[in-house]
């Protein structure tokens, strides 16, 4: 791999990217950096600018301003060198449905420079990795949605890229396949990461709960005898998703809204911003609970989570609200089953940050 050594382990580096379509500023001054061995989640609602950001990073769209550097190659100036460094899975399925699974992998392997004697063993290995080896001769158009996504991942991985860019890979995919898909990504990163740690004694970030999970996973997959262990250096993954549960599996998360990254941190640090500010309320009827909660002067927001309400309160107001909300609800004829402070989830944080960024 012709990896530019001056770049240490910063594999993706975008600065001040801008792109507009007509009057819409789809991407508005986005900067982000991803290190080797890191999974970076780009989170946001539809239309927040996640896909456009991805497309700017891979050079499928030309940025109005700013620059994107992948493995030391500028995507606008050294486009094809940069493109040899990453695997990209676009949001819309974009493999050839009239080709078989193996023909697709072969095309993308050779298109990205694998020689004629390299592509076959590598393709079979990667198909086994994603669990599609039995379907290698099937026409891609006849695969299920989940299998197509795994094939997309396999095509992106076949050249062992240093950087993996996945644009909403799990949208529209069933929960079981979503789970499988994430395990594949985590397995990939954690395996390569152990090698990184061995090779270069770089400063290792503190373990998050996600990383503990990853280590367990990698140990399990090692037991299964997977062969994806030859990846020499750490892989950087950029994944975009509208799902908060997926965001919490990333090492770092960037929250996108209206073309901007409005917050960027580890999931636990993001959640910590709302520590002691989220109350969970169960009771009935829900409309009364919501109405009363909204009336309270220290309540900033009320969101329904199934049969419960998440109530966000102002800083250091949790105790005040806890003490008066129950009686307020009862006086309006509502019934309270439970009211307590809970640890915030990413969704609470995302909603809070989205609101505070209203212009």
């Amino acid at each position: 791999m012709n990896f530019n050594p001056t770049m240490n382990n910063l594999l993706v580096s975008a600065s001040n990217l801008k792109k507009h379509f007509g009057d819409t500023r789809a991407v508005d001054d986005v900067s982000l950096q991803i290190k080797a061995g890191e999974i970076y989640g780009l989170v946001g609602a539809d239309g927040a600018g996640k896909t456009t950001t991805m497309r700017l990073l891979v050079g499928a769209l030309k940025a109005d301003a700013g620059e994107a550097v992948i493995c030391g190659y500028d995507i606008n100036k050294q486009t094809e060198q940069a493109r040899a460094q990453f695997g990209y899975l676009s949001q819309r399925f974009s493999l050839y449905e009239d080709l078989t699974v193996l023909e697709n992998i072969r095309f993308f392997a050779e298109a990205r420079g694998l020689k004629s004697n390299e592509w076959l063993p590598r393709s079979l290995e990667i198909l086994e990795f994603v669990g599609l080896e039995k379907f290698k001769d099937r026409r891609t158009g006849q695969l299920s949605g989940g299998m197509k996504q795994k094939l997309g991942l396999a095509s992106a991985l076949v050249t062992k890229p240093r950087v993996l860019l996945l644009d909403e890979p799990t949208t529209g995919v069933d929960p079981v396949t979503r789970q499988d898909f994430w395990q594949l990504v985590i397995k990939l990163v954690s395996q390569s990461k152990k090698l990184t740690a061995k090779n270069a004694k770089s400063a290792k970030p503190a373990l998050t709960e996600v990383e503990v999970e990853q280590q367990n996973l990698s140990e399990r997959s090692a037991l299964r005898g997977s062969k994806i262990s030859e990846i020499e250096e750490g892989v950087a993954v950029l994944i975009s998703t509208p799902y908060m549960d997926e965001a919490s599996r990333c090492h770092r998360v960037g929250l996108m809204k209206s073309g901007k990254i409005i917050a960027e941190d580890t999931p636990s640090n993001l959640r910590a911003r709302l520590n002691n500010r989220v109350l969970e309320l169960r009771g009935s009827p829900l409309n009364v609970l919501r109405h009363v909660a909204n009336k309270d002067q220290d309540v900033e927001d009320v969101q329904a989570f199934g049969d419960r309400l998440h109530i966000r309160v102002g800083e250091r107001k949790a105790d005040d609200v806890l003490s008066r909300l129950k009686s307020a609800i009862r006086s309006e004829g509502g019934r309270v089953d439970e009211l307590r402070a809970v640890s915030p989830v990413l969704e609470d944080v995302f909603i809070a940050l989205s609101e505070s960024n209203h212009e």
Partner: protein
Amino acid sequence: MNTRLLSIVRKEFIQIIRDPRTLVMIVVIPIMQLFLLGYSATNDVRNVPLAVLDRSQSVESRALLNSYRAADYFHIAYAVESEAEIEDLILAGKARAAVIIPPDYAQRLAEGDAQIAFILDGSDPTSASTALAASQLIGQAHASKILLQKFELSGMNLRVQPPVEVRTTVWFNPDLISAHFMIPGVIGMILYAIAAILTATSVVRERERGTIEQLIVTPIRPWELIVGKLTPYVVLGFFNTIEVLAVGHWWFGVPIRGNLGLIILLSGVFLVTGLGIGLLASTIANTQQEAMLTVWMTLLPSIFLSGFFFPLEAMPKVLQWLSYLMPLRYYLVIIRSLLLKGVGLDKIQFDVIAMTLFAIGIMTLAALRFRKRLD
């Protein structure tokens, strides 16, 4: 060999082989066009249905009708009894011409001033003018035959000869068969249309199906993408040329008098024009239908302003000038000259140079407009 380039070529071939629509377009449509145009687009006047009103019913009138019957320009389709019937037949399009022989034909022939009436449906001027000439020719030939017989009967042993005789020799296509003129044109049209349509749709299909996004982000260089995409269609274009040439030669009897290698080479140059138009159309169109339409919009003026059907010399000056903008014009001159006249490169220099410049120009423009990006 360049792996990236080969990978696209292989992929395109697999897709062509698996797409029944493309296969039909490549194999069946050229032959269909060839037979359609080879047989239908003909200026030859043959077997014009003729209605006959013979009021003379004499030996002499039957001799005249035999002269009409003998020439294969006409076939006597109806023997009618009144002029009203003739009108009905011509209005209904069942007869295109009619001969009326008056009751006193035999008598006046003996007196030396017989007349017959020939009525012609002139709504199609091309075939009408040919039929008119044919009818006059038949009448004159018949008249001189009668004159000769008269002299012989009168015992005068004169050698009767017209004072001037025009001796006609038709070169290259002595039987004046339209197919020999049309089929070289069909080769040109097919090369242009098939190459342009297939190229345009193969690029636009990637855009329609979203596969372009994945293709764009591969490290395939833009030139490799263009060359790789076009290579299969170059191969198919040559296949079509040879296919149409073979059927034209062995089925329609079109001669191949020029150098076959030169014919294939120059057809290849023209093919580049078709591929370039297709690539250019693909940079404009977003859907396959739009791509087809764009190609057709360039194809129609090409056909009418290239001398495909109608001779350029007969067109108004403005259209003649416009015809110099049609690459097909040059190819038609080249392919007709090579096939029918068997000329060498020196006789068609101008057209070869003009055609080559167009091929280079259009392909360059297309390659410059072609972007490996979504926007």
